[in-house]
């Protein structure tokens, strides 16, 4: 996989929070769970394009701030009664630094636990 970039350290993202990586007009939301797993998803809810980075993170899920759609951050799939999918991006954590691949991985993203 090409296009890996270093985007910052795990501690730059609040626990159970997210920051965004700006990429022209599009944004990628990078999330940190309570066990320091990092996930990256396109910052656009499959429903009405709400910014998922502003949602509440719980487990490996995030709830969209606009209409409460819930997504599995690993697969990008909407949960519950809603149907939809948000593109995910591969991330890797090495020595506490987060590396992001800018090629959308669909649902093949394998998150890595932080070891730093």
């Amino acid at each position, binding site marked *: 996989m090409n296009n890996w*970039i270093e*985007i*910052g350290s795990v501690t*730059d*993202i*609040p*626990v*159970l*929070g997210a*920051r*965004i*990586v*700006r*990429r*022209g007009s599009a*944004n990628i939301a*990078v999330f940190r*769970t*309570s066990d320091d797993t990092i996930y990256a998803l396109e910052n656009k809810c499959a429903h*009405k*394009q*709400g*910014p998922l980075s*502003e*949602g*509440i*993170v*719980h*487990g490996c*899920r995030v*709830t969209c*701030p*606009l*209409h*409460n759609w*819930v997504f599995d951050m690993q697969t990008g799939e909407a949960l*519950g*009664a*809603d149907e939809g999918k948000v593109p995910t991006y591969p991330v890797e954590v090495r020595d506490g630094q987060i590396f992001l691949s*800018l090629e959308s991985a669909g649902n093949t993203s394998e998150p890595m636990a932080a070891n730093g």
Partner: protein
Amino acid sequence: MKERLVVIGNGMAGMKVVEELLAQAPDMYDITVFGDEPYGNYNRILLSPVLAGEKTIDDIMLNDIAWYNENNITLHSGCKVDYIDRLAKTVSTNDGAKTPYDRLLLATGSKPFILPVPGHELKGVIGFRDIYDVENMLETSKAFKKAVVIGGGLLGLEAANGLALNGMDVTVVHLMDTLMERQLDFTAGAMLRKSLEEKGLNFITEGSTEAILGEDRVTGIKLKDGQEIEADIVVMAIGIKPNIELAQKVGIYCERGVVVDDTMLTYDPNIYAVGECAQHRGIAYGLVAPLFDQARVCANHLVHKAYLAYRGSVTSTKLKVTGVDLFSAGNFSGGEGREEIVLKDANSGVYKKLVLNDNKIEGAVLYGDTGDGAWYFQLMRDGTDVSDIRNTLLFGQAHLGDAGHGGSNVMALPNDAEICGCNGVCKGDIVDAISAKKLFTLDDVRAHTKASSSCGSCTGLVEQLLANVLGGDYSAAPAEKPMCGCTHYPHDVVRTAIVDQNLKTIPAVMKYLDWENADGCASCRPALNYYLICAWPGEYEDDSQSRFINERVHGNIQRDGTYSIIPRMWGGVTTAKELRAIADVTDKFNIREVTVTGGQRIALFGIEKKDLPAIWADLGKAGFVSGHAYGKALRTVKTCVGSTWCRFGTQDSTGLGIKIEELTWASWTPHKFKFAVSGCPRNCAEATIKDFGVVCVDSGYELHIGGNGGVKVRVTDLLCKVDTEEEVMEFSGAFMQLYREEAWYLERTAPWVERVGLSSIKARIVDDAENRLALFERFQHGQKFAQIDPWKERAEGESHKQEFTPLMETA
């Protein structure tokens, strides 16, 4: 090795326990189920619609055979257990096979009661209990014409209606003078009889069956008064009795049913019992709603969590005869110390009776208009004091105001009628989902259809749909509703535990109360964060990641991801300097739209998140602080100009409004909180639809509480009248604190006041001066830590910088 669970009885009660087990601990037990009937588990309460031709057997199947396979459950259907060896812990079936168990669950249900009169064993004499009976009736109706139903109770009438719809000539013989006398009083019973007679049914009341006639097959019945009635089929529907044959045979202690304790355990420590075969605190229930509660408790103990207890159920019934609306719950026949409130309109076929005991609803009978059944039932289960609303109680919840949603008969609406206006869900979608996906509760419907999951104003309609589709056994309003799917505990229990157990962080609360999902969810985390802020002012550190985005960034997220902000304008008063500052930031930051709000302030729209701190810095220089227009917090204090300018003004309403706002701003509350102060009874500030409204009069100040101008328009209740501004401040703070400490998260003052009752609030604020002062002091103490302008903190501080800047910008 896994423990072995054997379930005797493949009905709704037993399978509900199994479903709970599979959800909570799927790998804990090897499960074996024995069922008499050759089917999977079906919804027995929907047999009547099957008989009436409104549903098919497939429609009412809850767990088909495939489900047992998928979940690795061994099902022996059409197989009768005839012995339990309690020492060896095995059950044996009629074919001689033995199955060992570690835990045994008795869910043998009940049997129809068959009158032991001569001829009761003739062919064509049946009960109304299972698919076999229904098929028997359907078959008979094809070849024969005349039917007699013995028993004019719920089941009997549903059977009679179904047989009539299948073309039979039906006579109902009832021992008492009133139909459904266990659910209806005389008046409602008579109205019911009239409308069923109009549907073509015949009735003989006070008719006692002496014998069933016939040689091989039934030909008729004979009554004690000598009357004979022809019949090709006789349906005995005079009641059910718990099926305890097996339990009795093996010496498990039984009375009417198998006696269980509050954990659903029988006198044998390895054997549980649930459903209609069980007798709990002297009651053997014959309805499905209690069974769900029992199953939840039983499963909780089977998975060794062991913290739930079953304390009995309040039940309601609804006749499943299409076109007849009837609801009854609790004790409706009155008695010593009981009061009755009755509304009767015979021409339009409406009859409503509520029985009150000590100002609490103890029973209800509704005929013709049952739309408010769920509401009365909830008031009853919650034990709500209705003294403040009793003069309008019978007119229904709509009369308390619900934006025009109430009063309508939802079943009369077409399938494409929109029920949930927020999510665009139509009636047909909801009805289909309830049937197809086997939904039983409001939360199920919300999860599967989204209906009622946003503003909640259609909740009543959705509950009506549930009640109508499922029939009367739908459990309308569990008194103890869990906070969310992460916990079994309701709000009150959680709040009490936080204070009593000195729980001071969200993880501590979750740990102590066995939260089922680590980190909770987007629903419980904000609630817990608020409860901790309220309980431990100054000690608890606000968890911004448990805040909804608006409260985390102190602006309102808009549909395009930009933000709007509203600076505070104390009491709605502004100055040239403030207006200039707003104009300047509008130009400087290219703010896309400026509007005047309903709360007498100015809102700025279309702001990029990264610009927020700089805008706040500029606004701060002009003296502005956050208006908290985004928060579950004190919003505005709306005022009129009062005695300073207005020729009618009696007091300085503007000045008082500013003082109240200075006292209460930045206070976090369970839901948003709005004040208003009007300078005279003309009430230009609309104080009587606010959470707390002050109406100035010549002699002082009227204080009004619990109003709402939003989802459900509700006019305030008068709390009291006071003489001085100082008292207004003290009462305002005390009221807010009581609301802060007692209401559930996301519960506005209006439903809170209705839930706890105006009298209870008056008692603690108006009548008890000491308590009022204590509340006011706690309020002021909390304000010491709350009144820090969040905009200033973010405009100046480095600590919040992460929130407003991207992690990285890339090409």
